[in-house]
């Protein structure tokens, strides 16, 4: 019934129409090209990284990679076989086989062991800095949205937030180094890293919190005030609880940013290598004044600071995989939660 489809208003094929559809295809191509690029990066790291992270026998996950510290890898010939052993295993092997005491082994730094201290360090950095950033950010947003009246002061605050969002991360690193590490004398420490990262995500958290607070209808506040509650009681009981899910989900994107940045922690919190785990400290207060290893910095170190060879690729891709996986998980959580939240609250 092709005749039925023709009607007087049916679009006629013309040069203009053809060029229009060609240009639309160009736009479509641009969009999918971007997605393709992203997919290539993801797939490359997931495919090559999974070789390090997963294994064919049970438990199918390379547990040593997640639970051990980075070690040097020793490669040597032993009774006609090529042996690849980590530092600890190599020593044990030498004790077991006294004949191997003088075996000539080539050592490759960081190529064996795992990345446990880096994961711990990243988690500590994220938790601490987000705690600081959320406290400061949510309070600031409450002020901006609930208390402040438009005026010069508020304009200044908003301008500062806007500009803070545009400051390069390396400048935050320099600032953290100059203020916390040098001026306060905290040295390279968790505390310095926390504050540096917290200040960096502050604009993200404030903007996200303000948006969530704005979404709470005015009637909630007015109703509460009409019943005789004070301003604080209104905010505490009737505004913040309804805004909190939104604040938290939007702030997850801030978490992804904190976890992903390398430049600010390079001189403030990250060590290239550290033998002790963060909780192995003499005094409780030392906990805050110790540097940690962190995943992003470890990726930087293994991909550019150490000599490259056939063994480094394993640890590089493995670390990148774990890191990307964590960040992707956080980002997905934020995106999914946000779309759910949007559907749930309708005022």
């Amino acid at each position, binding site marked *: 019934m092709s005749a039925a489809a023709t009607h007087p208003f049916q679009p006629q094929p013309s040069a203009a*129409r053809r060029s*229009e559809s060609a*240009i*639309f295809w160009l*736009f*479509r191509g*641009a*969009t999918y*090209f971007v*997605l393709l*690029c*992203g997919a290539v*990066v993801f797939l*490359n790291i997931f495919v090559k990284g999974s070789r390090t992270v997963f294994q064919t026998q049970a438990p199918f996950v390379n547990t040593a990679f997640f639970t051990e510290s980075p070690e040097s890898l020793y490669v040597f010939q032993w009774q006609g076989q090529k042996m690849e052993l980590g530092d600890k295993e190599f020593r044990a092997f030498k004790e077991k086989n006294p004949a191997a005491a003088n075996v000539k082994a080539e050592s490759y730094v960081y190529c064996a062991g795992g990345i446990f201290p880096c994961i711990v360090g990243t988690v500590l950095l994220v938790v601490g800095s987000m705690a600081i950033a959320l406290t400061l*950010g949510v*309070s*600031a947003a409450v*002020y*901006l949205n609930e*208390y*402040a009246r438009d005026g010069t002061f508020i304009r200044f*605050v908003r301008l*500062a*937030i*806007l*500009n803070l969002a*545009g*400051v*390069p991360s*390396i*400048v935050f*690193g*320099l*600032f953290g180094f*100059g203020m916390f590490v*040098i*001026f306060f004398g905290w040295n390279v420490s968790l505390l310095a890293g926390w504050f540096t990262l917290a*200040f960096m995500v*502050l604009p993200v958290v404030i903007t996200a919190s303000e948006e969530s607070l704005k979404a709470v209808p005015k009637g909630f506040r007015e109703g509460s005030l009409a019943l005789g509650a*004070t301003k*604080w009681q209104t905010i505490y009981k009737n505004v913040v609880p309804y805004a909190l899910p939104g604040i938290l989900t939007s702030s997850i*994107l801030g978490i992804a940013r904190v976890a*992903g*940045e*390398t*430049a600010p922690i390079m*001189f403030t919190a990250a060590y290239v290598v550290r033998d002790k785990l963060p909780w192995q400290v003499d005094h409780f207060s030392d906990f805050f004044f110790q540097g940690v290893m962190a995943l*992003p910095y470890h*990726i*930087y170190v293994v*991909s*550019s600071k150490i000599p490259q060879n056939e063994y480094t*690729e394993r640890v*590089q891709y493995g670390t*990148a995989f774990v890191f*990307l996986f964590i*960040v*992707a998980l956080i*980002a997905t959580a934020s*995106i999914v939660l946000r779309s759910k939240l949007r559907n749930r609250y309708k005022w």
Partner: protein
Amino acid sequence: MASSAPADDTHFIAYKGSFRLFGLTLDDCIRVFFGGNAVVSIIVLALITYFLFREGSGFFGQNRDNLTVYRHAGLEYVDFIRTQQDDHAALTRYLSDLRVRQFTHYTMEKGLSLAQANAALASFDDFAGQYGDTVEPIRTLVSDLTEQATAIKEKFTVMEDKKVERTQLLAAGKEAEAAAVRIVPIDFVVELKPILGTLPAYREASAEFAKRLTAVLADAPAMPARELQTRMERFQQLNAEYMAGFPAVTRNLETWDYNKPVPVTQAFSSFLFGRQWLTASFWQDWYGVIPLVVGSIMVSLVALIIAVPLGVGSAIYINQIATPLEQKFIKPCIEFISAIPSVVLGFFGIAVLGQALRALSQVSWLSWVPGFPYSERLNILTAGCLLALIAVPTIFTLAEDALNNVPRAFKEASFALGATRLQTIIRIIVPASLSGIISAVLLGLGRVIGETMVVLLCAGNRIAIPDFTAGLAVITQPVHTMTGIIAQEMGEVVHGSIHYRALFVVGMLLFFLSLAINYAAQRIVRRYRISIG
């Protein structure tokens, strides 16, 4: 009875603010607390400025001292002659480039074997060798003078160190030890005498050099092709210009005065307009930011050239053309891309993209692309491509917002007048949101200029102004950037040294650059917004 009851019953009177702190009620206190948190962003911004200045401001004084020593110790004097030598070396490179071209001409076009081509080039090699040797008198002189000047500088540095030592001892109250530190002030006039005494020798050497050059150039071999012949003529011309500069060098040497004070402005200008960033050198450290700025700009430019069409194009697509299903799927995906940490992208560049692009450049049917094929794996192009992937989500999100803010009525009115979708998009929607799109691009630029890890890992880290004579092929050269240099050198410098302070000044430059970009973006949004509705 009813009228007297309320007066007695105090239970119904609300006591507002029984709690007081510094005369503030509880609610006031809470308000102040929240207000204090809101001020934090201003404080942080102020603190960043303060600490960058605090650590960086000493640089200009130190740089001036640095330049003064450069002059006092006679390094500047020697560098006049050294420049002459370096220019000659540049001309020698021109000759070797010419040789390569001749060689390809012989092997490719005339079909000669390698040995035959080399034989054909024998007279040219002879000429090039002679040309290279002409500089010998100057070279000997320079290497002598270098040693002497370095010795003076060394002496001076030792004395400075001793002075510092003495002040430290005095500060610690150890006066006896402080008195034992012997400081002999350096008499630069005496020290410089041997160096300045070489002026007649220089005149002689320079004359000899010029004579030899003329002699060698007189019997330059003929070139096998016209294109090569023009190059040879160009070479002759360059040499003529070069030799015409000799008297100026001599004049510089004659009028040079070690005691001429270094103006304060030079401490700034040698940083802002200096073309060399050279540290830990045996001769003289230079802190010129131009190579880094040029590197940053080149990388960002390449990134934006790639990212703007992609970002704006996909924003238009998603906002105007795509089906709701596509919208729902693609928007989170692009947000997802923005979550990829930059260090992972940098690693991807090192591990995959660098090699892939180089392999692509060596494909023969792509050799028409300027700069292809190239051999440096990490260069502007590699870093630019990765930075584009960072900039696209930023540009996309903000441009999409801007497009979204165009009222529906605009579109409907356009359709009602009979415009096609494309006409509506290009003539109505995009112009109406242009201010937003431009500010999106600017914020993307801010993001790209401030990006550290990708450029640190993938830009090649060669501190030099790329060779712009190569035309568009310049994008296949390695560079270093402002962000990269801070990240790379900050960990290794001595706290308080001039190098340390120079890095802070670079940070300051970046900070103000980002503020300026931000400001421009805001201005554009406010100024050029078409009144909507």
